[in-house]
């Protein structure tokens, strides 16, 4: 499954990152604690957690909006957190783009679509002349299924799905290598969510992109992500490949989160039970937890005592399902 892990190219590397905010004098709120993972080139890495768990904060730290208070973030092997030169900063902006949660709030209502989409081109002067810029904007709009005639329109004239596609177009026109998609479909109507997800997948395949997909909806994540990290109160509790996580959830929080996914089958849905997350079942000995690899590519945040329990659990589950990994 992850035997080829060694020869996969790492694009983003998060190394022991802490992110904290000052609240009042000398008081600090730690939003992300000791996050530690790699994102490989060409994959969709999902970050899942409840509201306020720090998933957006971590995504924004990669874009250099939130500073890290400890640890570092690397992009293609180069450090991009903390103080870096202006040229490096420009390089990061060019290569890492973001798709926002609320397409209505993230577009400038007083600017035409042409300006919204061209903004990145203007900033980096990525065009030869006016005709070239307009050709690029037309192409970007067509790539996301919009029409060149939309250029002179204003954001409020579009539907939610169309606006989100404008948001995608303005990120894609920069030809980025890595995209942080911060809950790109949670503000959209259910009927057009699939359309935007399919578009994102299509663009990813065409342009060899890597996504960090931030979400709280696990059914969506299962559809789009290659690997999933579960984050709870700023701590990453479990990282695994999508199917592994759904088949062998180990951490009690992951299990609780999975139990909230509604089933499309009404008979199954009727029997679905929500499991509350109870942190008291965890090891209370006070031993420091760390990320441990329980199976190749499957990491869990645990103490050594918990590790033994998880080992038993996964072995039992594997026997049940008759899987030998």
């Amino acid at each position, binding site marked *: 499954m992850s035997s080829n892990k060694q020869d996969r190219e790492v694009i983003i590397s998060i190394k022991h990152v802490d992110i904290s905010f000052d609240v009042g004098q000398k008081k600090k709120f730690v939003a992300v604690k000791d996050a530690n993972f790699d994102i490989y080139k060409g994959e969709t890495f999902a970050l899942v957690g409840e509201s306020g768990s720090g998933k957006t904060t971590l995504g924004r730290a990669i874009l250099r909006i939130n500073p890290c208070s400890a640890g570092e973030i690397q992009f293609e092997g180069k450090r991009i957190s903390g103080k870096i030169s202006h040229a490096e900063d420009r390089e990061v902006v060019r290569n890492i783009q*973001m798709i*926002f949660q609320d397409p209505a709030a993230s577009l*400038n209502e007083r*600017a035409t679509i042409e300006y919204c989409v061209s903004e990145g081109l203007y*900033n980096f002067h990525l065009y030869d002349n006016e005709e070239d810029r307009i050709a690029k904007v037309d192409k970007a709009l067509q790539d996301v*299924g919009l029409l060149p005639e939309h250029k002179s329109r204003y954001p409020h*004239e579009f539907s939610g799905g169309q606006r989100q596609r404008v948001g995608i177009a303005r990120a894609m026109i920069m030809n980025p290598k890595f995209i942080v998609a911060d809950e790109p479909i949670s503000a959209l109507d259910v009927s057009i969510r699939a359309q935007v997800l399919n578009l994102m997948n299509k663009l990813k395949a065409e342009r060899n992109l890597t996504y960090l997909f931030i979400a709280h909806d696990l059914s969506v994540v299962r559809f789009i992500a290659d690997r999933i990290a579960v984050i709870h109160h700023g701590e990453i509790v479990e990282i695994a490949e999508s199917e592994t996580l759904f088949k062998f959830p180990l951490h009690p929080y992951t299990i609780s989160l999975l139990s909230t996914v509604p089933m499309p089958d009404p008979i199954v849905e009727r029997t679905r039970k929500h499991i509350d997350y109870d942190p008291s079942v965890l090891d209370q000995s006070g031993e420091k937890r760390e990320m441990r690899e329980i199976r190749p590519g499957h990491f869990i945040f645990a103490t050594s005592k918990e590790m033994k329990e998880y080992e038993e659990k996964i072995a039992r589950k594997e026997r049940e399902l008759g899987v030998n990994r």
Partner: protein
Amino acid sequence: MDKENLFEFAAFDKLESEHIAAPRYSYWKSVWRTFFKSKFTVAVSIVMIALVLFALIQPLTSGYDPTVAPNINDASKKFLSPSSEQLFGTDNIGNSVFDAVWAGARNSIIVSFVSTAINMLIGVLVGALWGFSKKMDKWMIEVYNVIANIPFLLLAMILSYVLGAGMRSLIITMTCTSWIYVAYFIRTQVMIIRDREYNLASKCLGTGTGTIITKNILPYLVSVIMTYISREIPNIISYEVFLSYLGLGLGTTNASLGRMISMYTSFMSGYPHLFWIPVSVVALIAISLYIVGQKLADATDPRTHM
């Protein structure tokens, strides 16, 4: 015909559904359309433009000078009531009140327009940067606290003694501290929209602070800036009148509505028109400017464009 042939598949064009049927939206066109929709607004605008133009042009043709009084020794030309010959009558020194009023109005309008332009220009520029930069906010708020606590009347008195009375010194009086109130107002407005998500999106696309201010923030402030201007212009007109009334404004060599009102107050009982005519002209100019400004401010708010 059998049932199978009754229906056929229509061609389906996915892009067809992306068309927007609504007519094209243009911000400034919608502003003017909304503005001219109300007959009342159009009428007041015509009155305002007529008053301002008349006040600017009439004194050039009459050549009124408050220091000259050719009829001062002719008792038959003093205190005349308004008539077809002397529209607003004559005053205690036999000068035409009509000429004096418009010459005064001209000075008031020039002072208020120039001062407002200077205040808004400096205020919006400083306020936009002030609202954006947290570092600048720290010391600017102290500067504001100091300047905002200087009593305006005291400042006007000192400046009129130091600089002497006149148009230029009055404009300096009206602008030397007033811009900071505009700046403070704009700072607050900028802070409200500074942290909206679309500014973050611009930052992610590499847009600099200057472009964010001019493209993302100021367009949202057109309507509040218009509201401020519509209050500022009549305000400065009344301040000019008030200061001239106290003897701190334009001085004796310039025609001034304020000085006229203060001079004519003593003839209130015998010749009330001498007092009421300049007061009504000030009121008419100030109110029409205010109403037009308010209506324009409303029209620049895109929520009224539907």
